[in-house]
């Protein structure tokens, strides 16, 4: 546990030293979301309808931006090999890295989403569910993304390949996440979608670090 905290602390510290990387992903999120009303037209009824989908798709893409950096710098300077050799289980250390990835990319998205939701004229209730859905969904994005990041580590054309591998796997998260908000917008209960999102999260918390570790060991071999 101590090792996990140390990894989280280290990655957060590194992120704090290189603020621009974290902020880039955030501004990407803001800009992509803001482009849609400009492209589609500012009709409030239409915007309210498409808001959940747009916010979620933008969140998916913004998460992807940070994924390539999840393991690549550590792989380049040998930290990753040291982690693999350390007496602490690699899976736990990787879990720490995934948590810090979520703290630096997922959590800011969750906090920003309601502000952007206002741009789309969403009701307060829908904004609340949006935050809850993103709180459940963004860790899922980090967990699934970590598998992709580990698989494409050191592979040529890794960045583009990563999106090809990870985006299809993001589909259920997108559907349930955007679905929950849509339910509220159309006056239904979002409980079912949120439960499924939580179930997926539970599944991913268990399996994803394990698969990521396996993929990293292959990359390090």
């Amino acid at each position, binding site marked *: 546990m101590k090792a996990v905290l140390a990894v989280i602390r280290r990655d957060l510290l590194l992120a704090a030293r290189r603020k621009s990387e974290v902020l880039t992903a955030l501004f990407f999120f803001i800009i992509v979301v803001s482009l849609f009303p400009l492209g589609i037209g500012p009709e409030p009824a239409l915007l309210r309808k498409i808001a959940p989908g747009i916010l979620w798709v933008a969140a998916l893409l913004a998460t992807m931006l940070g994924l390539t950096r999840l393991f690549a710098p550590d792989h380049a300077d040998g930290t990753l090999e040291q982690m693999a050799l350390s007496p602490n289980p690699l899976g736990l250390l990787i879990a720490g890295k995934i948590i810090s990835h979520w703290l630096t990319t997922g959590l800011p998205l969750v906090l920003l989403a309601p502000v952007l939701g206002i741009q789309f004229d969403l009701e307060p209730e829908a904004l609340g569910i949006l935050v809850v859905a993103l709180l459940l969904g963004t860790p899922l994005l980090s967990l*699934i993304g970590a*598998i992709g990041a580990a*698989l*494409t580590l050191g*592979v*040529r*054309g*890794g960045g583009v*390949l990563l999106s*090809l*591998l990870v*985006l*299809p*796997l993001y*589909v*259920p998260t997108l*559907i*349930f996440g955007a*679905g929950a908000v*849509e*339910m509220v917008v*159309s006056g*239904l209960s979002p409980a*079912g979608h949120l439960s*499924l999102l939580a179930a*997926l999260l539970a*599944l991913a918390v268990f*399996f994803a670090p394990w*698969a990521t570790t*396996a*993929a990293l*060991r*292959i*990359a390090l*071999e």
Partner: protein
Amino acid sequence: MRGNRASLEPPARGAKGGGFINWFKFASPQSFYPLAGKMIPWFWGLAAIFLVVGLYISFFVAPTDFQQGEGYRIIFIHVPAAWMSMFLYCVMAGWAGIGLALNTRLSGMMAQAIAPTGALMAFLSLWTGAFWGKPMWGAWWVWDARLTSSLILFFLYIGFIALQAAIDDARRADKAGAILALVGVVNVPIIYFSVKWWNTLHQGASVAINKAPAMATTMLLGMLIMALAFWMYAIAVILTRVRAIILEREAHTEWAKELPEVKGANA
């Protein structure tokens, strides 16, 4: 990692027990290569027979559908292709899992050989589906549960092929592909059901096949025979491809150099 590789090579070559076929013998590319070569013509033959019979039934014997007219006959290609695309993904993931667990080389080659055929089947089911959808629903594409999950399945195949192609080291490509295939196979049912639930909100009328009036027996028979034809075709093509992969990867070995086809090509 490297230490146990030697011990997990084909465990007992030639050690036959009690008259049964020793399946482990064929886990080595060297002994599987000629076996596959012997099986391929048979599967091609079976594929041709089933195809002829299946196409005859589907075009001449099966009655015209009273709702959809002649257009429904695309079902005889569409449904077997869709079945194969899903089934092949599971088989691919199965081989990948075996390869990862037992560290057998042939499993990775099989997974690699299955992927293009699976992708082809997924594409074929989407394409024929579009051709069917246009006259029946008036749209090439509908964001329906089955269609969307087939599309994602196609993307998963493409991702697997792209990942394998991007990694030069064959062993690493196998293992990385195996993990992706296994993650994908977990995702397949989730996608299938998720899109189903998602769309119940938007689409009142479902266009699922199982809601159509019960099928005539000859229709069902034609479809099953066509499915068998697709099976045989898939096996034949996959075996042919796996032989090519074996030759490619084992080109440095003595036994591969001794093969008549390799010798003939070099001479």
